[in-house]
């Protein structure tokens, strides 16, 4: 198939969906009060961008998400390496972790509200808690499955234990860790938005809910559109970074098992 034809295929569904929505709403098959045409949504979105209303909320969401994810990386990866390497620690924590694991991470939002109130700290803490799990599981799993022959070889060549860790164990677990980062990123965004809806004073989740309650429907769609775009861009960014970091590792993408939170 010619490349331009592929390009057409790629865009046809998005453009087509927008056009169908526009037409259906303009004709009135779906009530325009509930399903405003995309043109009106776009106008509303641009207006809100220019007044600075939406950027303000987007910034609140992104900071809580990013702070939560970064702290989760700092905690989840070293912890996972430890559990993957040290058998006694793994055994000791197995039951406790397996007991906590099935509790959906959003269920701790009420606890976080009790302890931290409804401000930014609460949302940051919840995002961090939720993002730690996929990182912990994927890192543990990847480290646990390091080829023992590689480790022994490095030891025979006189590598110190920390060199073995940094130059053999962690690189070989990197595909799994990268998967963990991607899952954690998605989870952190979902949980942040949920917390904003449940007890928000700001953020895009709060904005979408407030505009719905206030009957500002085109603005609500604009907020949803922006959240979708954010999720898409963040996922794309991480995939690109992963592709670069793992260029040496062929088939990395196919091997890592996704472990949800």
């Amino acid at each position, binding site marked *: 198939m010619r490349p331009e034809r*592929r390009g057409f*295929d*790629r*865009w*046809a*569904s*998005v453009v087509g*969906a927008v056009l169908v929505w526009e037409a259906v709403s303009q004709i009135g098959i779906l009530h325009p009060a*509930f399903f405003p045409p995309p043109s009106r949504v776009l106008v509303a979105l641009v207006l809100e961008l220019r007044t600075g209303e939406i950027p303000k909320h987007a910034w609140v969401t992104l900071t809580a998400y990013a702070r939560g994810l970064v702290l989760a990386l700092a905690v989840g990866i070293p912890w996972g390496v430890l559990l993957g390497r040290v058998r*006694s620690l*793994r*055994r*000791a*924590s*197995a*039951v*406790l972790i*397996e*007991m906590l694991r*099935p*509790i*959906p*991470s*959003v*269920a*701790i*939002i*009420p*606890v976080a509200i*009790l*302890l931290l109130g409804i401000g930014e700290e609460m949302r940051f803490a919840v995002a961090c808690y939720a993002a730690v799990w996929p990182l912990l599981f994927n890192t*543990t*799993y990847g480290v*646990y499955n390091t*080829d023992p022959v590689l480790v022994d070889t490095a030891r025979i060549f006189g590598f110190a234990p920390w060199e073995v860790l940094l130059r053999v164990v962690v690189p070989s677990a990197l595909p799994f860790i990268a998967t963990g980062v991607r899952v954690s990123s*998605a989870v952190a*965004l*979902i949980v942040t*938005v*949920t917390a904003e*809806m*449940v007890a928000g004073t700001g953020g*895009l*989740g709060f904005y*979408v*809910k407030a*505009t*719905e309650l206030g009957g500002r*429907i085109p603005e*609500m*769609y604009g*907020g*949803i559109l922006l*959240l*979708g775009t954010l*999720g*898409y861009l963040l*996922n794309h960014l991480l995939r690109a970074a992963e592709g670069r970091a793992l260029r040496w590792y062929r088939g990395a993408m196919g091997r890592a*098992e996704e472990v*949800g939170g």
Partner: protein
Amino acid sequence: MRTPRRLPGIRSANWMGWLVFLGFVGAWEILSRRSGSLYFPTVTRIVETFAAVWQLPNLSAHVVPSLVRMGEGYGLAALTGTVLGIAMGHWRRLDRFLEPLVEFLRATPPPALIPFALLTMGIGDASKVFVIAFSSLWPILLNARDGVRNVDQAMIETARMFGLKAREVAMRVVAPATMPQLFAGLRTSLGVAFITMVIAEMVGSTNGLGYFILNAQRLFAVPEMYAGIFLLGLLGYLVNVAFERVEGRVLSWHRGSRAVQP
């Protein structure tokens, strides 16, 4: 390539793990007795509350609606995802056509859709079922697609050479070969559906477990809140075990599935 080892689970004999768990529970009990804080009830108090709260009235008022919503949403996602995923795996052009739309919708955080669902479908069950189905659709769809696409071409050619008709090839070669990956998607989606159920009930519902724990927090009924959270953990665990049972049955012929069974 070496087959990756699974981490030892909860059901393996592990006295050290249980000891640490009991230590955690004991430490909670002692610390909370000492602190006497309203927000930090003792384990005994939570267990008592758990037994008192999860009786028939609350089970039918909150647990049953939750499970029904989740079942309906997940079932809808399983059906649509499998059919659409198989179609996308079979027809490359359809896949290329839909992929950008799928990539965008999949990246949208499901809670963002709750206000939309409440607006267009009302406060009833339909809006919650929609959001649960929407969020759990993608892992099933993508795994079904990849599963169909990755079927060994040589197997299909061989089956054709032996004179199997297209329908027979689909049912006896493609379907079984797709099954393990389809189940991987179904398993991921089960967790997603569970979480989305809680989210949807927290944001826009007047019953269900998600509503129950958030409402308990708002009323400062702290032991009730913890009792709700622990019930969620228990349900999450049971749902997973049930899924593993079904998967073990369906995929018992498949080598890779043995690792799943305890």
